[in-house]
Structure formats: structure tokens, C-alpha cells
């Protein structure tokens, strides 16, 4: 490892920590979110340095991109309902009792001790230590795909991944449930110029997303990253008002949400029998089945993430407005 690379690592690590602190301490919430997005992107960069491009891609697209969009949307909503939409730095948007400085310092000291303990434990643990390397290498030929991360996600530990899709499903059901009947703050919208931009970029994003999905079987990429990129299409469509969710679309949306989990679980169940257990894909069909699952899961993820961004279930009759700014 060259010194330059180490220097880069140290700088990057320092920036990540500094951004983490800054995003929690900066007064303006909008600035905090922006700092958080930068933090997320730099973390992704660090993960690239640690030879984890799939993870970096997922963090950048979902952990930072989608999360950032969700945070911004919520901030917009809060400013709207509290009537502080037009104001500058917005603090204290949510009323909570002030925390005494003593408590903060006590907590900080406590967490400092935890950090120290964890750091010591980390330093004492083996590095480049034991892992699944050999097991994965041995099992790869039977996995049906060439990219190890995809093999883990969709074959070796497919059960985890199914449940992760179930978590997404639970989230979208919960969000629809939570925001039912919520008065409709106008969604943050893009201006005319951006609408044009959106129309131009959409096809490109679709192509990138699909490529990522397909590529996932042999190189970094896969359902989640692809889904996230496609979800970006949804976000743009929603923001640019090219697509406005209608009550009539609910049924279709429900089917789209459950498509991934349903198909995944269905395939897992259907392949069992004849001496095979659930999730045990027949070797000759493994590739095709995995690609099928990935494709359907990608659609589900994209629609679900977009729906999580949109929030409310579209309903016909708006429930009485909470606040009227006009």
C-alpha cells in the first residue's frame, strides 16, 4: 500500500467523521441533509476503497440518494404544515423538550466510552480474518451466477433477501396506513426547466438501471441498485408531475408492491419437493430463476421506493385540509 493511498484514506476517513458531526450539529436542517448526502457519498467512496463496489453502489443509490430525497421531502412537508415554508434556516420544526446540556455531555461521555471499548475490541479482533471466502468459492459453480455477491444474495442467503423485500413491503404498507387521510401538502415540484431535463434524462436512467440489474449476475450491480436507479425515474416522474398518482392506480400499485416478495417466495416454494427444500433451485434452471426473481424484485423495489417517497396512499376524496396557506 503506497503512502499516497494511505494519506487519501486518512483524509477520506477524516472527512467522513467531520461530515457526520457536522450534519448533526449544523443548525439549519436543510444544510444538515445536504451534509448527510455528502457524507453518504464519501462513505460509498470509502467502501469502493475497501473493494466493495456493490455495497458502495447500494449506499450511494439507496442509503444516500433515496434517503436524502425522503428527508428533503419530509422537511418540505414540515415547513409547509408549520407555516415556515418561506423562511430561511428552519430550526425547532418539531417540538421536543430541550435536552439539558448535562444530559448531552453525559451521553457523549457514555458513547465515548462505548467507542473506546468497541475500538479496543476491534483492534483485538483478527483482521483479514476468518470468513466465508472458501465456502463461497467452493459453492460458486453451483450457484447459477458468476458474481459472488449476487450468489450470496439470491442463492446462498436468499432467505435473508426475501425477508428484506418483505421489510420493504411492510414499510410501504405501514406508510400508506400512517398517512391515510393526511392532508395533502403540495409535493415539492420541479420547475419548467427541470421538467424538460427530466424528460430527457428518464430514458437514460431506465437504461442504466436495467443494465445494472442484468449486469448483477456477473459484475457489481443487481436488483437493489437497479431498483434504486429505476426508483429515481419514479421520483423524477412524481416531482415533475409527469405522473400524478390516482386512486384508480391503487390496485395496480398494490400488486406491484407485493410482486417481488410474492414471486420470490413463490419460486422458493415451487422449487421445493422431490427431495429439494425451499430455495433450492434446480442446477440447470438456477440462472434463469435467479434472473426472473431479480427482474421482478427490481420492479417491486423501484415502485416501492417511489411510493415510499410519495407517501400517502392516493385517495379519491381528500379528507378536510389541515391548513390552508392561501
Amino acid at each position, binding site marked *: 500500500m503506497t503512502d499516497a493511498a494511505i494519506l487519501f484514506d486518512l483524509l477520506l476517513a477524516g472527512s467522513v467523521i467531520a461530515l457526520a458531526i457536522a450534519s448533526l450539529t449544523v443548525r439549519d436542517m436543510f444544510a444538515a441533509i445536504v451534509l448527510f448526502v455528502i457524507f453518504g457519498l464519501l462513505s460509498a467512496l470509502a467502501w469502493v476503497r475497501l473493494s466493495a463496489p456493490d455495497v458502495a453502489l447500494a449506499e450511494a443509490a439507496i442509503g444516500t440518494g433515496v434517503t436524502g430525497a425522503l428527508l428533503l421531502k419530509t422537511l418540505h412537508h414540515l415547513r409547509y404544515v408549520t407555516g415556515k415554508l418561506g423562511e430561511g434556516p428552519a430550526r425547532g420544526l418539531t417540538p421536543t423538550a430541550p435536552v439539558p446540556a448535562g444530559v448531552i455531555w453525559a451521553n457523549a461521555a457514555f458513547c465515548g466510552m462505548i467507542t473506546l*471499548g*468497541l475500538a*479496543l*475490541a*476491534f483492534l*483485538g*479482533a*483478527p483482521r483479514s*480474518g*476468518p*470468513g*466465508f471466502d472458501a*465456502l*463461497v468459492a467452493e*459453492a460458486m459453480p453451483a450457484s447459477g451466477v458468476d458474481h459472488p455477491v449476487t450468489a450470496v444474495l439470491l*442463492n*446462498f*442467503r*436468499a*432467505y*435473508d433477501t426475501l*425477508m*428484506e423485500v*418483505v*421489510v420493504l*413491503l*411492510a*414499510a410501504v*404498507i*405501514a406508510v*400508506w*396506513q*400512517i398517512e*391515510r*387521510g393526511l392532508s395533502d401538502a403540495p409535493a415539492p415540484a420541479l420547475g419548467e426547466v427541470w421538467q424538460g431535463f427530466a424528460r430527457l434524462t428518464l430514458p437514460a436512467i431506465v437504461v442504466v438501471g436495467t443494465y445494472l440489474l442484468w449486469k448483477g449476475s456477473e459484475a457489481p450491480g443487481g436488483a437493489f441498485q437497479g431498483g434504486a436507479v429505476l426508483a429515481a425515474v419514479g421520483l423524477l416522474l412524481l416531482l415533475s408531475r409527469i405522473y400524478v398518482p390516482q386512486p384508480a392506480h391503487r*390496485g395496480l400499485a*398494490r*400488486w406491484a*408492491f*407485493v410482486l417481488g*416478495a*410474492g414471486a420470490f*417466495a413463490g419460486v*422458493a*416454494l*415451487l422449487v*421445493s*419437493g*422431490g427431495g*429439494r*427444500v*425451499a*430455495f*433450492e*433451485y434446480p442446477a440447470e434452471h438456477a440462472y434463469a430463476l435467479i434472473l426472473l426473481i431479480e427482474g421482478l424484485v427490481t420492479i417491486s423495489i423501484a415502485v416501492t421506493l417511489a411510493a415510499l417517497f410519495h407517501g400517502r396512499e392516493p385517495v379519491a376524496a381528500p379528507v378536510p385540509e389541515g391548513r390552508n396557506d392561501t
Partner: protein
Amino acid sequence: MMMIDPVILTLFLPLFGAIAAFVLPRAAAWVGLLAVLATGGAVAALVRDVLAAGEVVTQLGGWAPPLGIALRADGLSVAMLAMTAGVGLLVSIGALDSLRDLRERQYFWPLWLLLLTGMNGVYLGTDIFNLYVMIEVIALAAVGLTVLSGTKQAVRAGLEYMYASILGALLFLMGVGFVYLQTGRLDFAGLIAAEPSGAMSAALALMVVGLLLKTALFPLHFWLPAAHANATAPASALLSGLVVKAALYIFLRLTTYMPLPDEILVTLIGMLGAGAVLWGGVQALRAERLKLLVAWSTVVQIGLIFIAFARAGQVGLSESWKAAALLILAHGVAKSAMFLAAGRIKDEIGHDRIADLDKSDIRPTLAQFTFALAAISIIGLPPSLGFIGKWTLMEGAMAAGYWHWVAVTMIGTLMSVAYFSRVFAGFLRFDRMRGELAEHKGWALADAAPLTLAIAAISLGLMAAPILSFIELGYPFGAQ
């Protein structure tokens, strides 16, 4: 497709049920009930298999751990599954009747079935990362259920619950990271094989704190009372009766696979339990609303379960988990009955202020009777399952000479008599009524469900011997 493994069905039936209930909102209730029933059938098949074989292991995808994930059913896990299925079925039947609002009905079922999926997954899981994903499934569905009523108090409580849940899960995840760092694997067998080390201690500490937060052990209980008190009755019953048990169960498994490194830590866990019993008891005595009182009693009972865990110290852990497990089962059944009954009382009277219960001229006698029956098990009076649990707890503590745990248990029992008798006074006083007495008007489905649960909580005590020998099947913890 021939015979499908009941282990798989136990997981997949509620999942497919949730999906169907979500895409068919109009039929959600019946789809949901059917799915819960079918899941119960799968669990029954699993009971049969475990009785025959002791343990049932399924390696998903045909990949053996540590690379793959195995599901394992033994006596303890199937007892938890059976309790979940039984309580879940009765709460579902109660919910058919008590959830009147169309949209509440529509969302209750998919969320509850996802919750069931998550809990079944926890009880069958043998992989710590998979457990992390499962507790997140549970968390999201549980929060969705908490805020089902949509009131401000419920949403506020739900948000606190969400924060606590996420934080607990992340602490657990960090612990998983340290386990991998040290051992390079994630299955239970890896935990058992691991030598003590700094990283493993850190992992254990992180995971235990995360779980204690999720199961609301004092002083990490802050989120629980409001969340459980403000949810709609069937949701409260599920949250208090079932959901907190999932994290407790993982705690029980982990701490026996990775023993707490020091006797002091076992004692500390017991002390926190004692804190829960006393503090929760005081709060229950002060609570102004019935459902809040019941929620604080959950805090107390969680504390008691941890005392049961610590009752005989480090050397006694190989027996103590049984006392804890009995109390978990007892509380699951009795508390869900109690919350459903409290919900019925609130529905009929129109409020649940304890001080004004006796002013009402409407007396939902059956629900009040159910509440009292459930209280018998929760106080720990014979012959209920709660009594058997308490007996087992005190027996071990006494045999080990740990009189302090005996004392705390007795104080907790007396306090529970005191706070429940506040409620009984509200039920049974008749000289403050404002009109003619209107007694209970016939049977309702929503009354039958909690009554059945309450009767079960009491009569299961008579079956304690078979239950005890069942949970030992497959040697969940002991040496073979």
C-alpha cells in the same frame, strides 16, 4: 409439489396471507383469518414432528450453515410458535368484531400477518443476521399496528417506539458485525464454538443492549407504556402479548449460547428486572387509565422474566431459562386477554379512566370478568400458568439461597394485587352510578376471544408438567 415441510409453511403461510390480504383489501379479514388458521395448522404439524423427533432442521436452499441459513424447530421454539399461533388466532377472532373502522380493518390484517411472519421467523431462526432482518420485519409491522388508530397520542408513541426499535436493531447489527469479525460466521453453532475474546464480549454487549431496548427492560422501557396503551385493543394485545417476546426469546437463546462472562452481569440483569418490577409497579399504581395500567404491568412482567433468568445466578442458567420461558408463555396468553378485555371495557363504557369506571351505568360484566381472570394469571395466583412460572422462579432462587430475588418477586406480587384491585373497585362499586344499571347484553365475538384466552391462561397451569417437558425437547440449551 408433495408434502411441504411444516417449518417452511409456518413461515410462508402468513407471508402469503399478508400479500393476499393487502392486494384484496375488501376480503382482508377473511383472508387474514384463514391465513392465521392455516399457520396454526402448520404449527400443529410442527408440534407433532418435534414430539416425534425432538428437533427439526431445514437447511434452506440446501446450503448447510454457516454458508446457508438453517431453520430449526425444537421444544422451546415450537412452544413459542404455538403460543403465538394460539394467541394470534384468538386476537384475530376478536379483531373481526372489534375493528369497526373499514380502513383500520383493511390495514390491520396485512400488518398483523407480516408481524406473524417475522415472529415465526425469529422462533425458527438460527442465524444472527437473519434474526436482525426478522426483528426489523417485526418492528415495522408493529409500529404500523401501534398507530392504527391514528390518534395523536398513538402516532407520537409510535414514533418513539420506532426510534427505539431502529436503535435496538442497529445495536444488534453492530454486534453481528463484531461476531463476524471474530469468528467469520453468523450461525448459532459458530457462537457456541467461539472462544471468549474482546470482540465477542463487545458483540454480546451490543446485541444484549439492543435486545433489552426492544423488549423494554427497565430503564429502556420508556417507549413501551405509551405505545401499548394508545394502540387499538387487538394491536395492544399483539404488541404486549407477543411482540416483546420475540426479543426476549433471542435474548434467551443468545445468552445461553454465549454465556454472560461474569456472574455480576447476571446479577445486573436481575437488578434491572427488579427495577422494572418496582418502578413499573409504582407507575401502575399511579396510572389514571386502564390501558396504561395494563401497559405498565407489562413492564413489570418483563422485569419478572429477567429476574427469572437471573434467579439462580450463572450456575443456574441451565434451569433458569425454563422459569423464564414459562413466564413468557404465561404472560403472552394472559396479557393479550387482558388488553382485549380492557379494549372491550373501553368500547362499552366509552372511556377507560379508572377513577370513573364506577360512575358508568353500563357494566360490560363479561369483559370485566375476563379482565379479572387474566389478572389472576398475571398476579401469579394458582393454578394459573403465571403461578407456575412464579413458583419455578422462586423455587430456584430459594434453592440457590438468593433470597433477594424471592423478596422482589413477593413485593412485586403484592404491588400487582394493589394496582389491580384499583380496577376491581371500579368494576364492582355500584353506589356512584348515574342511571339504571345496564348489564352485559349477550355474547359478542369480541368477548369470547379474550375469555377463551383468560381461561387458557389459568388452565394451562394444570398442564405445566407436559409444557415443561415439551420445551426441553431437542435440548434447546442443555448438553445432550
